[in-house]
């Protein structure tokens, strides 16, 4: 089941009504959340429900074992059980073919051909997201930052909670589990804010991102047909497509959770207004970047072991971040570009004489430079193959500028309008410093009615046929 479908709207309306009609019965409410979450996931492919349940059982048991022991070696042993089982499942489903293919390619250089080794493996939707969630649970318990729950239903609800199950935000156990275990009351301000954020999310996804895809997809599928102008436009459009697609998904997830009485952390904070890549990663996919910071970068030593080790740690963290997105060299290079620029920024900003770059007008220049770097890296993220990515880059920098590809004029007009709409809303929120998460909290019923009317009409007039959310593939 996907958010941008009529089935989901009906599903959510039913869950919402039943859920809130049982306001004072926490156990039953949680059971409803669990069952609806399993239905939500099983709608896509029920066979993979077993994987989530297996992962949850392992971490539920491991969490208790770690907490129940005072011996470091035993605690470490159980942590290793959690890491190997979770990462093992992820590695098998997501990376098996990539690593075997790469291995075959590598040994092929030495003349050895091990034969056919790839398997026909289906990637379970959301596995990268819920693996990181379950890991955060056991690692936090290991670090004595969190105590395990005794209630398996609550734990499974935490892992499978449908608003964030398939594409995040990656909610830590310390943030979400206590909310699941606490009685929740219907809160009008939360309901309002959730409704408005969900509406904005739908516009971002269905109107802006999906329309941009209509221009981007044909260009990236056949880059050899297009000149530099078209490839530059398509790259910039893709930067906005992936932003509006994923932030739209996050808005819907956060908004829906809020309507059910849960507060998720912010996942996007207007990232294209960043003045550096360092700032970009504080604003882009925040739940992933903070996860990588807290559980990988800091575990590697962070900035505590000298500047060179810090540079190394940054590179490793970003390369793993790239690989987390997908099993291909494109994503590793994408992560590598970000890692390299982060290292360079650390170096530049650690020198006082570069502090001039922090002032106006250089910080505006910073926004442009950051956007340029991000766009270059998106080429690797979007191109179907590594060869295509290099081909596109080469073609862009051949400066073969000419008349751009127009596609259908109605589509192009809608794309530009949609982009304009997104730009206006984001600039307004940026200038007014209003987090979208609380924007609608104080709206009156009439204001909400008007806002939702505008949302419905914008969607009616400008929706594009639903594509799956880009991050579903991760």
């Amino acid at each position, binding site marked *: 089941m996907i958010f941008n479908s*009529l089935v989901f709207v009906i599903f959510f309306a039913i869950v919402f009504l039943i859920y*809130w*009609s049982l*306001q004072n019965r926490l156990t039953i409410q949680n059971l409803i959340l669990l069952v609806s979450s399993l239905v939500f996931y099983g709608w896509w492919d029920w066979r993979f429900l077993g994987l989530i349940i297996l992962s949850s059982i392992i971490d539920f048991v491991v969490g208790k074992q770690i907490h129940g022991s005072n011996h470091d070696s035993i605690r470490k042993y159980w942590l290793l059980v959690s890491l190997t089982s979770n990462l093992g499942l992820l590695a098998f489903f997501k990376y098996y073919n990539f690593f075997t293919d790469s291995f075959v390619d590598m040994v092929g250089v030495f003349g050895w051909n091990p034969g056919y080794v790839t398997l026909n493996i289906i990637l379970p939707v959301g596995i990268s997201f819920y693996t990181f969630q379950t890991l955060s649970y056991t690692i936090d318990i290991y670090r004595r930052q969190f105590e395990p729950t005794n209630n398996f239903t609550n734990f499974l609800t935490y892992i499978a909670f449908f608003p964030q199950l398939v594409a995040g935000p990656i909610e830590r156990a310390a943030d979400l589990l206590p909310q699941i275990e606490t009685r929740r009351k*219907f809160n*009008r301000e939360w*309901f309002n804010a959730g*409704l408005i954020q969900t509406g904005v999310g739908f516009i971002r996804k269905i109107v802006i991102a999906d*329309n941009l895809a209509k221009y981007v997809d044909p260009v990236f599928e056949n880059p*050899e*047909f297009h*000149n530099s102008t078209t490839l530059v436009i398509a790259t910039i459009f893709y930067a906005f497509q992936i932003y509006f697609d994923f932030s739209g998904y996050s808005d819907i997830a956060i908004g829906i959770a809020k309507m059910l009485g849960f507060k998720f952390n912010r996942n996007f904070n207007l990232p294209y207004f960043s003045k550096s890549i360092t700032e970009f990663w504080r604003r882009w996919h925040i739940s992933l970047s903070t996860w990588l910071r807290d559980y990988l970068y800091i575990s590697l030593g962070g900035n505590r072991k000298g500047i060179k080790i810090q540079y190394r740690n940054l590179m490793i963290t970003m390369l793993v971040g790239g690989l987390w997105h997908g099993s291909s060299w494109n994503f590793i290079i994408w992560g590598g570009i970000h890692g390299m620029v982060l290292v360079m920024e650390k170096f530049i900003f650690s020198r006082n004489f570069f502090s001039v770059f922090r002032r106006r007008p250089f910080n505006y220049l910073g926004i442009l430079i950051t956007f340029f770097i991000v766009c270059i890296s998106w080429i690797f993220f979007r191109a179907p193959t590594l060869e295509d990515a290099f081909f596109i880059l080469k073609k862009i920098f051949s400066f073969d500028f*000419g*008349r751009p590809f127009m596609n*259908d*004029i*109605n*589509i192009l*007009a*809608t794309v530009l*309008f949609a982009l304009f709409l997104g730009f206006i809303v984001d600039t307004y929120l940026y200038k007014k410093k209003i987090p979208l998460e609380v924007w609608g909290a104080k709206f009156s*019923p*009439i204001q*909400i*009615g*008007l806002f*939702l*009317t505008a949302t*419905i*009409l914008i969607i*009616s*007039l*400008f*929706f*594009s046929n639903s594509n799956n959310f880009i991050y579903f593939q991760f």
Partner: protein
Amino acid sequence: MKDNIIYVLKIAMLTFIISIATDRLLYYGLNFISDKVYSGQSIGKLNQFLESKDSLSTVFLGSSRTSRHFDAKKIASNSFNMGMDGVKLAYSTALLQTLPLQTKQNVIFQIDPGYAIDSTYDGSDIKALGTKYLRNDIITDNINSLDQGNAFQRLYRTVGYNNLILGVVNNYLKGDREYINAAGYEPNQIDSLQQKNLRIEIARDNNLIEDCGQQMDITPIYKKLILEIKKFCEENNKNLIFITTPRFKDECKDDNDALSRFMTKSKLRYIDDTDYFQRSNNNEYWKDLGHMSSLGAEQYTPRVKNLVNSLNK
């Protein structure tokens, strides 16, 4: 809790009432404007066709391979080329049925064998007639019969103008009637970039290994639509020819054979001109592998003119 339920219902009711009222206002406003638009393919060309269809002697129906290949004015007087980009058989079948009953007319129906064997085809191209859904009975019936009606559109009528509103307003303000002069023919002009891209396409196509020699069959939906077309034409005095216009190259003929067999079995006149330029091909005749350039169409015109003349005898 009761208060909260009332609160949620209040918002739901308010949203419903305001949104439906606004939708209807906008919808009738858009209908008023769009009915006066005669430029832009999606609305303008359709309006031009609907306005003139009753008095036409020859009508060309089909996809972009119709609009780009038939120079209607040169082929027959008082004719109109109603080819539309991106559409297949369902869209054109619905338009055919809007032609006047019991009035003698020639109908040249461009049909592509490749689509006729495509099992994923569901008739969804008919959605391009969404602006006329619930406004034109014939079109509405056709959309419903293919189960392509949008339940949401019954509630929010503006869905019919999805992705068209900016074009409608722009073309309304422009006020052109661009489809009158060329009678719907939209020639492909070629340039150096397009010729370069054509060479890339040809090279790619040459590298394709096709699995020819398979037994293929026309999909049930295509059979149904073709028989509907036949029935309508027989009952309403229309001279019908199905025609597959030229392609740059077509190695596999399994789909063409399947379509020919079905046409023969159904006693329909079908001309397969896929290989029309096989002996005298020239890159300048082509915009891409499936669409002729204006020069190609010019070369092809006498052939179609003869066919139409044969219908008039």
